[in-house]
């Protein structure tokens, strides 16, 4: 397995050889930031294109195919349009908060994005409490959404923001419980260690068998809710709230919400791929030496991206199948069904681990 540490170490020593320490750190930080922003933009474009195409396929349509071959340039045109649009300012709104809110959302999204383990050694933020940090940072996005709804001075925005806040806070509980259950299994909170462990011992979804599979399914449901996506897209139920909390945004301010929504979906899928499907770990089968030998030649980043897109397909399948829930049904689902289930699963997983009912 290719270890990305070689590249970063080489770069670090190269810069250190002729630059002072602070300049090295500065240059490395700028480089890392550039890499994050580039990856963020590239994957957002891929995701938007994928969403449109896959949604069309699920509805027996073809999807965009007019702009460029197979409609490939459609997203670029949309981005161009969004960037050149006027940013409208309204009277009687809190201008400062109105323009700060999208940045809070995008910051939370980008910070969680940099928690993803792309390859062995290619991870931007890797704490010993990585999973916990991920949960903590992702909750800042809610503040951005609530501020957006309040500062627009518009009742639709406000109702949308309130719904979104209630929904995200509620479903965060389920996500937290599921993550706790999986941490029970792995015994570590660091994303890199979780991946390394899965390369050595096998994927968590197989190691944890029944409770892990159930956790995975519940995670897919809670993840869609956490990203404010259908069937849980109450905050932007367009038939009743026009566009929810981002009704009053235009131009790139709206673009940030759009971007953040798609990238949150990507992050959600990325975390699922890391925690359940082994992250960058190749699919190794004990005993099949030839197979394992070939699989190890494929870089970890390829495996990671493949797994992320697999989970994304599942999430899109869910999103384009079910009708939108009413807000009370949505909260009922979380508090009366999902939360008891995830709590039970946490206990079951803890019992499984303590009595050794895991496949190693």
């Amino acid at each position, binding site marked *: 397995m290719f270890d990305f540490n070689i590249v970063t170490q080489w770069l670090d020593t190269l810069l250190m050889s002729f630059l002072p320490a602070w300049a090295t750190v500065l240059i490395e930080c700028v480089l890392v930031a550039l890499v994050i922003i580039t990856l963020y933009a590239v994957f957002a474009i891929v995701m938007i294109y994928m969403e449109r195409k896959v949604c069309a396929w699920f509805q027996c349509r073809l999807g965009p195919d007019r702009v460029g071959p197979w409609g490939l340039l459609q997203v670029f045109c949309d981005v161009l349009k969004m960037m050149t649009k006027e940013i409208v300012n309204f009277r009687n709104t809190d201008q400062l908060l109105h323009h700060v809110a999208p940045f809070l959302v995008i910051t939370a999204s980008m910070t969680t994005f940099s928690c993803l383990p792309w390859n062995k050694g290619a991870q931007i933020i890797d704490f010993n409490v990585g999973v916990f940090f991920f949960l903590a940072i992702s909750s800042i996005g809610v503040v951005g959404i609530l501020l957006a709804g309040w500062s627009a001075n518009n009742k639709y925005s406000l109702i949308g923001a309130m719904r979104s806040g209630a929904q995200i806070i509620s479903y965060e509980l389920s996500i937290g419980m599921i993550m706790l259950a999986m941490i029970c299994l792995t015994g570590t909170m660091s994303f890199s260690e979780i991946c390394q462990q899965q390369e050595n011992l096998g994927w968590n979804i197989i190691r944890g068998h029944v409770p892990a599979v159930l956790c995975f399914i519940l995670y897919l449901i809670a993840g869609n809710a956490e990203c404010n996506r259908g069937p849980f897209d109450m905050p932007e139920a367009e038939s009743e709230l026009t566009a929810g909390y981002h009704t009053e945004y235009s131009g790139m301010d709206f673009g940030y919400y759009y971007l953040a929504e798609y990238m949150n979906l990507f992050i959600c899928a990325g975390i699922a791929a890391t925690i359940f499907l082994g992250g960058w770990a190749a699919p190794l089968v004990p005993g099949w030496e030839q197979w394992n030998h070939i699989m190890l030649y494929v870089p970890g980043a390829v495996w990671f991206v493949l797994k992320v897109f697999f989970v994304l397909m599942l999430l899109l399948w*869910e999103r384009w199948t079910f009708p939108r829930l009413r807000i009370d049904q949505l909260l009922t689902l979380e508090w009366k069904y999902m939360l008891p289930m995830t709590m039970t699963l946490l206990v079951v997983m803890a019992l499984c681990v303590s009595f050794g009912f895991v496949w190693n």
Partner: protein
Amino acid sequence: MENKSYFSGLFSGIKSLCTGLKVTGRELFTKKVTERYPENRKTNELPERFRGVLVMPHNEKNEHKCIGCGICEMQCPNGTIKVESEMVEVDGKKKKQLVRYIYDHGCCMYCMLCTRACPQGAITFAPEYECAVFSREALIMQLNQPDSKCEEKPAPAKPAVAPKPAAAAAESQPVAGNATPDAAPAAPAADSAADEKMAKLMAAAKKAADNAAAEKVAAEEAAAKAAAAPDDAELKAAAEEAAAKATKLATAAENFAKKVAEAQQ
């Protein structure tokens, strides 16, 4: 959901969700139905019943079926149709003949009342769709082709006061004439083919009844017109004619319905 207990509700919910996922999952791999319009304009075919534009079919001899009765014009809620007709002498008899059939496509709301009311089946809707033009005037079109004339009817039974209604009655129920002899022996057999025939027969009977009803309405309208202008001989004659036609049609429909009922037993 309220009547079910927590767990049975949960499991039935999960089951229905899985059904939904199965449906969309299958949809993902089915052939896509999108029509790639500008490219496929040569091959694209709309459903037969699509209401694109009103047309008057002409046969190869440049003949149409319109007798210029104007029922369609009366039926149209929007005043889309203008029927211009004249009385001509044919073999010493006065006969109404269509001169121009004007249809304003811009006013049409595609309700199809005109084609339903037409006793001759002379007009129908064609599945055309590229109807956009640059002026409103271009939307007003004449449906009968130049120099076209009304299709000659098969020889009328008797040269009485109302030769046309008889012919019309005979013609408007071609299904009835053909289907009755076939259906009557087939009815006792209770197989599916017979059922299908019976359904067809009943539909035909209903159509005949509808025709009769439409005719009755037209007759009443004609009568009202005649009453408004008592000294106009032509209108009076037209009203009588229409009334006679309506009665004939109604009797035919009744007879037909009776036959159907017999066949059913």
